[in-house]
């Protein structure tokens, strides 16, 4: 693909905050394919950043670089003071501090809801089983499904499964939560229950990067919206900016499709 795109836009966090994620000059290739180009993005503690963009623009790849599910070839990624290098200890450190919620839930089907949630706290954080279960039940309560603890994921609805996935990530006590289209695989009538949980989380001050096209969510709790296209950050602004006065043609074209 020829390099016709204009110079990349920086997405720096407001200077009055305390940055927890800093990405500088990030480039990534899948073989020959240049999937992320010159991404510079920082996120402050407690900020909620919404990432939008057409399918295939690199949104998932970007947030998967942040917990090193994808390896980057160029640039720096620093999460809560730890730089992601090839050092496995750094990778493990970053993964302990970031929770991730996937489009397809990815609950472990052979474990109960409670076991899904307590597995990592017990094995990674080395908590006692009783403490892990207590925390797990606290978060299950918080996402509104305390009564499902002993069921298997296959026995729950999509919305319930995604809420379990959120509780699973939260129980590890992460400083940052990454959401990759958490409502795209859900039936329309259960999207609301998942968004509600996410809004509550944002209001409690969790740092969040959310790939989603739910612009209602962006308007309610989003601090900044980032529009990506062809592996680049094309436009950055407040949710209002995107609703009222998007600047770039590509942004306008995209927004006209989803709004």
């Amino acid at each position, binding site marked *: 693909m020829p390099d016709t795109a204009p110079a990349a836009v920086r997405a720096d966090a407001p200077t009055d905050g305390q940055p927890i994620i800093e990405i500088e000059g990030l480039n990534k290739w899948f073989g020959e394919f240049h999937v992320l180009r010159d991404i510079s993005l920082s996120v402050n503690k407690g900020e909620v950043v919404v990432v939008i963009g057409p399918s295939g623009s690199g949104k998932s790849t970007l947030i998967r670089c942040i917990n090193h599910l994808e390896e980057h070839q160029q640039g720096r990624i620093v999460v809560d003071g730890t730089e992601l290098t090839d050092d496995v200890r750094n990778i*493990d450190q970053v993964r302990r501090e970031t929770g991730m919620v996937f489009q397809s839930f990815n609950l472990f089907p052979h474990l109960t809801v409670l076991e899904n949630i307590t597995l990592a706290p017990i094995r990674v954080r080395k908590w006692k089983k009783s403490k892990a279960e207590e925390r797990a039940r606290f978060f299950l309560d918080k996402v509104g499904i305390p009564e499902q603890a002993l069921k298997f994921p296959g026995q729950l609805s999509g919305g319930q499964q995604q809420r379990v996935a959120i509780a699973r990530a939260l129980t590890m006590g992460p400083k940052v939560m990454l959401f990759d289209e958490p409502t795209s695989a859900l039936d329309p009538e259960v999207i609301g229950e998942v968004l509600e949980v996410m809004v509550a989380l944002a209001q409690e001050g969790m740092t969040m990067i959310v790939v989603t096209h739910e612009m209602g969510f962006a308007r309610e709790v989003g601090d900044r919206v980032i529009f990506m296209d062809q592996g680049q950050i094309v436009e950055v602004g407040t949710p209002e900016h995107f609703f009222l006065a998007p600047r770039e043609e590509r942004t306008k074209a995209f927004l006209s499709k989803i709004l």
Partner: protein
Amino acid sequence: MFEVIPPRPAPAGVAGIGGWIRRNLFSSPANTLLTVVTGLFVGYVVIAVVAWALFDASWGQVWANQRLFAVYRYPADLLWRPMAVLAAMMALIGVMGGAGRSNEILRGLFWSLVGFVAVVTVIAILFWPSARVLWTGVLAASVVGYALGAARPALVRALPWAWAAWLFLGFFLLYGVTPGSGLLRIVPARDWGGFMLTLILFTGIVPSFPLGVALALGRRSKLPAIKYTCIAFIEIVRGAPLIMWLFVASLLLPLFLNTDPNNLPAILRAYVAITLFSAAYMAENVRGGLQSVPRGQTEAARALGLGGWLTTSLIVLPQALRAVIPAIVGQAIGLFKDTSLVFIVGLADFFRVTEIVANQPASLRVTGGVKLELYLFVALIYFFFAYRMSIASRQLEKQLGVGTR
């Protein structure tokens, strides 16, 4: 108001056995013809076989050589040793069956085995004075094991250790410890055989399981040395028939290890060949299971901070193995019958004993020889175990399919 009408039987011709027969066997002229022809044929064969078995067959040779069939040339005065190993095995299986008695499959397998033992015990009590006590002991051990397992399900946690101890002590009990003539004198492996040997070789499936899992995981390793070693092993082993590997093990292994073949019992060599052969197939079965686990499972585990080993052992493997249990049971059934190939390296397993008995003068004196009887007997025993495993496999598939979780 209305009155409750009591249920009426379905009209004749729809319900009951008669209805089923009419619907399935005589629904059309073509079907009727097929039913009649098949029925005549099956009837003829059954009558012929039964008539032969009752009036023409000479079962005396099966009866007279029961010990050869069971243990081959294992000394008669030491029979208590294999029987003690068998009793311990049945007791351990009993604990499993008792603790898992709510599981239809475990319970069914256990009672089938006990049924088999019970039949032999009754025969022993009636006809074999010398084996009465031994077989009654085996039956008692099974039942005691079952009762223990039922009363104390927590015993299951000790089972891996118990099986390891059984394997270790069992081997020494079978083989013996002292030279000479005592109770614990050594019985050279060349005297082991019969159904006992078939069972021993069949247990090769047990070590082949962890080996196969290791090979399957190794095949996915990022380290080229491990990866290609595993691939080479799997492909080479699967590339030749078991019979060839039995030859290789019996002829080449002693050369490689630079020992006299007689120092390395033929049974051990065959056992190694069978185990490794089975491991290669196991690896491919397990690999299929590993591939069926979605990538998202690994990613979710890694994102939670679980390391590679924990992800594999807690997330990927349990799901992969669950998916391939039916295939593994199928492999076990195959191996059970394939152990009969060891005759090619001079071992007298259950199948080979048949041939030996058929060539005894006593067999040859009977007009026409005694062959059919012997093979029929052996076939029935193989069938009992293979078919029982196959039922278990089908139940397992159903159970796993229903509870897909």
